């Protein structure tokens, strides 16, 4: 019986309640900052020790002491393996960085923002640790509600409201889809515990329509959160307008958590349920992942708004991680986990560096408006460039290690697809960051025309008066650098790689896992080793980093956006799809869910 998991959630929730009560008294800002930051630090400590503890075997704790009776789960449990604990620790680390970052930003932030951020943290930790399907849904909703409120935080502009509306409507529809799937599964099995669901469905060897449709609706709901095409439309609208430190959380943990939950449910419930037919879910997921990589990369490259670029790169990288999950092999899953860790840290750092830029230049986020403005900010420039290279897959950042592991999980045509998509996604999104870094910090490339340069291009709803044109304080640089450093350390440290591999191998043994959770029978973790990246991986990693530099150079060299008519038509077409109309987006969700279910159903025949 471990206290760590419940304690982590309880700490964050209590901190939130305290921040909310304090805000009534209007205390000096520093009190709230200190309270929230120390809370997040404690949660980071708790989740990290949980990560260490779970390395010795899954950590189970049953709430209220409702232990299973005769192998039947009665209550709700936290079943923590290194994957879940790692996600929780990532969430805590990014929240801590964001909280430190806002010490000197968001002047009008009072206790409400701190309270919302801490509840958000609690929800993410709970979602990562839980072993119960409905509990997962509740934490999922908790996380979403905080996210909607945080998106609309700056109501002075039109953009945040529009973004929050689209975000809330699409994700609420997604949540209903998840809940419908849960109701179907409960009606079929009479249980909500993940491992027990898997075992109960496993005993009926002929998977039926219900299982497939439940999978389709749960997967669709989670993929909405993950921002995978064709469910990704809200991402750009929300991540362009939310306060930048919050965007770091959305991009670095919220979207990955959707994929984490999908992976967890797929491996624990649906792979045992589908048995030998499980391979039917591989190709639909691979297709969606590839589509996300392509759409996300292209849209990212074409944007001029710094935050919108990073938002579309979220879409691309979510697709990439989904590819690792979709292979349905332990090595792929372990690779996806390592990639996710590295990506989340780098992405958080990049969003925070954009936030620092906006702080320095009175909220300007347009690439053209900022051209050459950052010449004095060497430190920030170097960190941004390093982040871009890390995104492109430069060793030794963890994203590089994860990508090489994902490739090892594939073979045949899937390998070609996965490897190509991984290169495309990381090179293009990395190159975009490098292009921006060269223009903003070095003043290279096309010079903007007068008016834009003077006043910045504040298209309504796009720019944000977040900053106050001061120098970049140390409290902003430290989180940016710290997250990058963590991403590099995670890439070098061998325990990360081997731990992820062991955890993935354990997840791949649902029967042993179920016996551990329900009967308390100890499970022997199977030995699985993943070789360190070899020479070929290094060549590929260095190659894609070089390709990103070259592409960024090409982007700078192009004097004006002269493109072939075909590409322009493609660009306009893609842009018009991202209409900002909630009705359109919901249509895509419905069509996507139906298509996913239909393809799976045909596969089952």
């Amino acid at each position, binding site marked *: 019986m471990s206290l760590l998991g419940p*304690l982590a959630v309880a700490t964050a929730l209590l901190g939130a309640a305290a921040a909310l009560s304090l805000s009534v008294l209007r205390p000096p800002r520093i009190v709230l900052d200190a309270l929230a930051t120390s809370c997040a630090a404690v949660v980071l400590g708790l989740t990290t020790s949980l990560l260490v503890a779970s390395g010795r075997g899954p950590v189970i704790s049953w709430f209220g002491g409702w232990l299973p009776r005769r192998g039947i*789960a009665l209550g709700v449990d936290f079943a923590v393996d290194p994957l879940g604990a790692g996600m929780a620790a990532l969430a805590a680390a990014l929240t801590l960085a964001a909280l430190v970052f806002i010490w000197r930003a968001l002047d009008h932030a009072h206790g409400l923002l701190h309270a919302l951020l801490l509840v958000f943290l609690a929800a993410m930790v709970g979602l990562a640790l839980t072993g119960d399907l409905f509990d997962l849904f509740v934490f999922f909703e908790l996380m979403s509600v905080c996210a909607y409120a945080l998106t609309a935080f700056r109501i002075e502009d039109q953009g945040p409201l529009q973004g929050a509306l689209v975000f809330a409507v699409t994700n609420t529809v997604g949540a209903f889809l998840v809940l419908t799937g849960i109701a179907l599964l409960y009606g079929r099995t009479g249980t909500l515990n993940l491992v027990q669901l898997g075992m109960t469905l496993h005993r009926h060897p002929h998977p039926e329509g*219900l299982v497939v449709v439940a999978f389709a609706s749960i997967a669709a709901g989670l993929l909405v959160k993950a921002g995978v095409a064709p469910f990704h439309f809200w991402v750009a609208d929300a991540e362009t307008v939310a306060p930048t430190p919050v965007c770091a959380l959305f991009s670095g943990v919220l979207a990955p958590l959707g994929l984490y939950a999908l992976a967890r449910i797929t491996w624990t419930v649906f792979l045992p349920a589908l048995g030998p037919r499980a391979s039917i879910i591989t190709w639909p997921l691979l297709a969606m992942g590839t589509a996300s990589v392509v759409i996300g990369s292209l849209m990212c490259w074409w944007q001029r708004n710094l935050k919108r670029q990073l938002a579309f790169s979220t879409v691309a990288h979510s697709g990439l991680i989904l590819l690792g999950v979709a292979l349905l092999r332990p090595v792929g899953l372990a690779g996806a986990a390592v990639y996710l860790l590295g990506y989340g840290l780098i992405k958080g750092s990049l969003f925070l560096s954009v936030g620092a830029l906006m702080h320095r230049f009175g909220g300007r986020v347009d690439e053209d408006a900022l051209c050459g403005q950052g010449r004095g900010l060497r430190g920030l420039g170097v960190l941004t460039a390093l982040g871009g290279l890390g995104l492109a897959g430069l060793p030794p950042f963890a994203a590089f290690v994860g990508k090489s592991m994902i490739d090892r999980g594939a073979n045949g045509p899937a390998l070609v697809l996965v490897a190509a998509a991984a290169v495309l996604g990381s090179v293009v999104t990395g190159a975009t960051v490098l292009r921006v870094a060269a223009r903003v910090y070095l003043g290279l490339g096309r010079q903007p025309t007068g008016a834009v340069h003077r006043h910045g291009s504040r298209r309504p709803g796009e720019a944000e008066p977040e900053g106050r044109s001061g120098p970049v304080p140390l409290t902003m640089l430290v989180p940016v650098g710290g997250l990058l450093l963590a991403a590099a350390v995670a890439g070098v440290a061998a325990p990360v790689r081997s731990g992820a591999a062991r955890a993935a191998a354990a997840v791949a043994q649902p029967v042993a896992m179920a016996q551990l959770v329900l009967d308390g029978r100890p499970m022997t973790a199977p030995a699985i080793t993943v070789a360190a990246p070899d020479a070929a991986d290094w060549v590929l990693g260095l190659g894609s980093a070089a390709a990103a530099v070259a592409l960024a150079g090409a982007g700078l060299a192009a004097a004006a956006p002269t493109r072939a008519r075909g590409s322009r038509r493609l660009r306009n077409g893609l842009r018009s799809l991202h209409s900002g109309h909630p009705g359109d987006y919901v249509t895509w969700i419905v069509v996507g869910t139906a298509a996913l279910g239909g393809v799976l159903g045909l596969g089952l025949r």
Partner: protein
Amino acid sequence: MAALLGWALAGLPAFGSPRASLGILIDHLGPSVRHATDMVAVVNFDARGIDTLAEEFILLAAATGVAELLRRARGEESGPAVDQRSEFGPDPGSEALRRVGPALVGFTVLLGLYIVAHGHLSPGGGFQGGVVLASAVILVYLVARYADLRRAAPLPAFELAEAAGAAGFVVVGLAALAGGSAFLANVLPLGTAGQLPSAGTIPVLNLAVGVEVAGGITVVVAEFLEQTIVLRQRVRGRR
């Protein structure tokens, strides 16, 4: 989509005859293990207490979001809230309302408290009772002079109640943890089934939820109310 769902539903057991499930087990276990008579309360506040904890914080987060959204907007467009009643709601001077109002409010408060207190015994509980309590407060807002009321029972007080209720739930859970049991374990004496103090922590948690929900719903509705009132001021100022 319809066809798919239809196909899925064919896999469900026929309506009215579910297979053996967790719920049936709880029906059998609940009375003996927890000395409560309302099994839904046993599930909500004991076996799946963590769900309810998260659910309370969903409400808290939403109320915080609503307050954030509507309050800042208010701050930027008007001065202090003055009484402005004639266009909306009953006239505060209305004799009939003055007489009936307090009785009505008193009755609603009693009803709310009753529902909260009997959550583990009969249908109802912290959430339902909390909504009733909040509606009592709203009733006061409607009946009494708004400005007087803001002075007597300011909105921050309800925000505090909301936070305190939510924190109370966590503290009860942590207390069990400190006592060496699991988080949210039912550590209080169970008492006799059917009596008001029975079922251990379930009524305590119900109370915490009642306070939280009453505070939260009051904050939300009052924020919406203030929106209409502030606006009226502006319209009038322009005439």
